[in-house]
């Protein structure tokens, strides 16, 4: 029975290969999966693609497939499993270790224009054995957005920030009591880490983490500064005093009816720090047009196009990382804010936690942290519980 099935599988896989092989010569088409469906984003992407096609007549089509951000990696993986891998794909920072280490991506360093000027801290996540496997097209530091109508004295430390936000809401728009990795924007200030740099040791039970999470718990349930689970407060509509969010969100404040400013993350007990979120774009090794795809990626991310993309996605090219250049594409943010939050943030920032098998870790940690989001939670024992749960997962890799 199983031999018959194996045969059938082989036949199916062979069939897949046959039907696709005709595309190798002649006109080429490229498909890139993205998680944005935003008109302005897609317009820019299509403009860049049109320019490339004009210069390369053999490439007849470059298509951007919008997959909902929610479940993006899942859908992408399903397509790959089914034999329908895109030629290029946006990749979330949290899936970076999985994609880079699995060998699913083709090396691209040779195609990247002036690869030596990329900020090293920003490319680390996408490298293996000195080769680059995806281009970090968006590197977005976390900052503290402040509604200056509600907060007069700008906070410099976490204690000040929570005191100023008490009863007036300090929101973390992406957290939703699910995406725990966003909390790294806070706990780094205490010197805490989700896991050690080599990814083997759990960091949740450390003294630093316990202090940081006790602070967060108190800010939610005692100080009433951070809105509790299930409460929706929108900073960008003017309902909150402060928000911890990525700089790329500043665009949502274009029509803001309140005064606002952008500050670097407040100082924690361990002083200054910065945390960044990233997105990379890579070429799938299994693409029939991997060569062409890598070539397009080189064009997509060259200095000129990076400058265009910078209006939505903060760049990692040193030549673009100065307040003057960034100010051109980010009219909403003042040059000194760009310097302190974006430029300093990108050069000294740590990327949000990511690990091989990230999605399983995500779900496990999310579930293990759930008991923490109650007023009477025992922070220390919950965090010990997180480590107990994820230890086998960290050791597996």
């Amino acid at each position: 029975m199983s031999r018959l099935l194996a045969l059938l599988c082989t036949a199916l896989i062979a069939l897949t290969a046959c039907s696709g092989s005709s595309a190798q010569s002649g006109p080429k088409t490229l498909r890139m999966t993205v998680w944005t469906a935003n008109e302005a984003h897609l317009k820019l992407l299509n403009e860049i693609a049109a320019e490339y096609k004009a210069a390369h007549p053999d490439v007849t089509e470059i298509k951007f497939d919008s997959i909902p951000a929610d479940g993006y990696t899942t859908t992408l993986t399903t397509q790959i499993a089914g034999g329908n891998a895109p030629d290029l794909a946006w990749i979330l920072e949290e899936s970076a270790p999985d994609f880079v280490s699995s060998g699913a991506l083709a090396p691209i360093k040779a195609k990247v224009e002036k690869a030596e000027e990329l900020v090293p801290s920003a490319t680390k996540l996408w490298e293996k054995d000195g080769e680059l496997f995806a281009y970090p097209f968006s590197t977005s530091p976390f900052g503290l957005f402040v509604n200056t109508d509600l907060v007069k004295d700008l906070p410099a430390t976490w204690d000040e920030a929570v005191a100023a936000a008490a009863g007036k809401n300090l929101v973390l728009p992406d957290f939703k009591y699910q995406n725990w990795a966003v909390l790294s924007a806070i706990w780094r200030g205490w010197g805490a880490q989700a896991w050690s740099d080599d990814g083997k040791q759990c960091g949740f039970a450390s003294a630093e983490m316990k202090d940081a999470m006790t602070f967060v718990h108190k800010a939610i349930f005692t100080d009433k500064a951070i809105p509790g689970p299930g409460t929706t407060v929108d900073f960008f509509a003017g309902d909150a005093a402060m928000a911890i969010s990525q700089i790329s969100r500043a665009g949502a404040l274009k029509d803001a009816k309140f005064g606002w400013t952008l500050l670097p993350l407040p100082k924690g007990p361990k002083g200054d720090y910065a945390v960044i979120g990233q997105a990379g774009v890579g070429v799938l090794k299994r693409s029939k047009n991997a060569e062409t795809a890598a070539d397009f990626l080189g064009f997509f991310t060259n200095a000129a196009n990076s400058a265009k993309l910078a209006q939505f996605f903060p760049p990692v090219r040193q030549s673009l990382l100065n307040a003057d250049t960034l100010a051109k594409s980010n009219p909403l943010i003042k040059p000194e804010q760009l310097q302190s939050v974006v430029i300093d943030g990108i050069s000294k920032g740590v990327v949000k936690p990511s690990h091989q098998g990230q999605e399983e870790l995500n779900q496990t940690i999310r579930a293990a942290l759930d008991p923490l989001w109650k007023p009477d939670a025992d922070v220390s024992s919950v965090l010990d519980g997180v480590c107990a749960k994820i230890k086998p997962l960290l050791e597996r890799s």
Partner: protein
Amino acid sequence: MTFWTYRRRDNLVGYLFVAPALLGSLAFVLIPLGMVGWYSLNEWNVLGGTFEFIGGENYQRLLADEKLRDSLVATAWFAAGLVVLNLTLALLLAVLLNQKLRGTTLFRTLFFSPVLVSLVAWTLVWQLMLQPEGSVNDLLGLAGVDGPNWLRGESSAMVSVIVVQVIKNVGLNMVLFLAALQGVPAPLYEAAKIDGAGAWTRFTRITIPLISPTILLTSIITIVGSLQVFAQIAVLTQGGPGTSTTVLIYYLYQQAFQFHHFGYGATISVLLFVIVAALTLVQWRMRRKWVLHES
């Protein structure tokens, strides 16, 4: 007189009539199911593109998987809660609508209407209404009840998922029960009344036995359906808080599609198939015991 006797022609027509369904089952059910069985014997790394035969390893893992045990417990609670609540409510509504009252058609329409609202829309709406400051707690507030944070408490999340699903689909069972109730001959009740049987006795001794075939059918459909509830969990709780609402189908989805363990996901699929098949078989076997006049 010829080869084509009536019987032979009849056979041919029979085969021709079932051919589309049969070929469809083969292509879209049995062969895919066989392939899932084959995947379950392999370690399939989707991203790396490796596919390796590992024999029964995934099945050993299945036996040792603590999360799977939690998930089976959650599944049992979910299925039990759903079936009991759904059938009770459906029967209650059907009995109420079977009274001689004006306007029952209107009420019937209202109770049935959620069946027609698209599932994603329905779940989306409830997700917003179940927030701590959402409409559900506002309504409870009118009655002086201080509602919990529904989707964040372990048992309240389970209750929420069940209730949302029951309200969505109870209309179907209600209609089936209503038709069955209307098929119960009125003279039986009259006779029982004369014998001095109260309303409750009449209900348990006459109504329930006479509509037992419908109870069987609806309970099979509802139980099998309860093991396939996916989108609601995905939108409302994502299996949380903790793992309290991670039912088997959601766990399967997580393993295969989110954690990229396709081989292990296939193994859970096989388990799910076995459970559904066994449950259906047991119910079908039991029908002779508790269903009156099964032909």
